[in-house]
């Protein structure tokens, strides 16, 4: 299996810290042979540069191969940074309007995101923890609106030739369903939302119907979440085995171009 999104580093609101190698070894023990990882510490910095830099220095030798993703704040960093991140070996960019506090529709933001997208995959991260336990400070942060998201997706994908390599990660199931009414273009989604596979137990099937089996990937959200959660969602779903195989491996490779 390939984990399309996991993380190492430190989570600032509770006692949770894990090295890149520890995350990779744990994923290996769960049956993952590759993973795409970002640095959680960098996500909480307005300027993620130093967190990303530290991340490049972290040892990655493990039984699960680590592909590194840079955290990117398009409201603070610029196109030059994108190119530097590419030179540093990052294969994609993780951005979170919630944490970085920007609107997806700003001209500068969209320009920088387009540059990122031209240089790798782009992961738009909704939340990595349950919104009900957010620190009080985040009550004042932006909330991603579906109209804003669909507008940004349309603009970002319009200039792309070939595969649109954008992943919406950790989005609630209900948002992914409603988004399809506003945006019917290509985009990847994952099963990391805590809502997927509750009653009526058909959420994975519905996501595959809405987005296509080639556009769903398996993200664990580990180290924030227990890694088996996403795996079990996929295993317990009633989609064909062939689709499960694509979701567990091939789709992530295509998304990241690795």
């Amino acid at each position, binding site marked *: *299996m390939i984990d399309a999104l996991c993380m190492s580093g430190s989570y600032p609101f*509770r006692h*949770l810290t894990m090295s890149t190698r520890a995350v990779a070894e744990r994923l290996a023990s769960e*049956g993952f042979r590759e993973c795409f990882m970002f640095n959680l510490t960098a996500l909480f910095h307005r300027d993620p540069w130093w967190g990303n830099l530290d991340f490049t220095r972290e040892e990655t030798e493990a039984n699960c191969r680590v592909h590194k993703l840079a955290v990117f704040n398009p409201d603070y960093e610029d196109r030059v940074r994108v190119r530097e991140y590419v030179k540093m070996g990052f294969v994609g960019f993780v951005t979170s309007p919630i944490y970085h506090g920007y609107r997806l529709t700003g001209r500068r933001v969209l320009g920088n995101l387009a540059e990122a997208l031209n240089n790798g995959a782009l992961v738009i991260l909704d939340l990595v*923890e*349950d919104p*009900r*336990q*957010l*620190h*009080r400070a985040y*009550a004042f942060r932006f909330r991603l609106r579906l109209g804003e998201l669909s507008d940004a997706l349309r603009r970002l994908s319009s200039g792309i030739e070939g595969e649109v390599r954008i992943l919406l990660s950790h989005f609630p199931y209900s948002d992914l369903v409603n988004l399809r009414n506003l945006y019917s273009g290509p985009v990847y989604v994952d099963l990391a939302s*805590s*809502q*997927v*596979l*509750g*009653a*009526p*137990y058909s959420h994975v099937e519905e996501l595959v119907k809405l987005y296509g089996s080639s556009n769903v990937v398996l993200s664990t*959200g*580990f*180290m*924030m*979440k*227990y*890694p*088996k*959660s*996403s*795996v*079990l*969602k*996929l*295993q*317990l779903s009633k989609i064909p*085995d062939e689709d*499960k*195989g694509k979701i*567990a491996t091939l789709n992530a490779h295509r998304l990241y171009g690795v």
Partner: protein
Amino acid sequence: MASIGVDLGGAVDAHTHCYPDMSINEEMIKLSRMLGIEQLWVSYHPYSMSSFRPPPEEVWRVNEFVYNLSRRFREVRGFVHVNPLNEDAVKVTRHFIEERGFIGVKLYRAVRVNRRVVDPVIEVAVENDVPVLIHTAHRLYPNPRPNESEPDDIRSLALRFPRAKIIMAHITGGGDWEYAVGRVRDLPNVYVDVGGSVADYGSVEEAVKVLGADRVLFATDTLIAAAVARILDAELSDEDRVKVLRLNALRLIGDGQ
């Protein structure tokens, strides 16, 4: 993908719900059997009721639905859903425990359990030595809901009824589980279930560390993948895992082995 290969070894799902749509219940039973869950402690899905303060006739009807489900599926054991504000709250509690073989009481969001109006219902539970499962919100932000119990309300009830066997519901159902377990740490008659949608790494370990392995119960609250992942991924000893999965629940209903 490899087969699921999960066997929870006769686990007890200490907190789940049934729905008016029988196909959902059948699917839940099927998944539970596949995973080795031996008992499901079931109350009616509260969002499928007309309100959080359902009138008496609706309360009787939904509990009868659970009773019929328990007759159809051997895994299902009933928890009687009670609205303590109804005049017949004690009567309905007593009826389903004493006449229908239900093994516990479920309180939802009709009223916070720090209010004395719940006391007669708790007294029936104590008298029959059955657990009381209390829906609890662990979110600290942004605002509390007026009739939804929080860990401090559980604390208040547990101190009023030291003989009551109280289950504080779904610490992993959203919110601050670290705070939640800390607030009931010194109350030996309070158990917690680790049901709900949140799969935060470390949540089960924290509950076991703070409360001890004897006071933590496996539960899904219908969200099966997250629940199974939590208990399988948690770094617990095999002995503690079996306690959480099964033994604590059986002990709670006097079926200890």
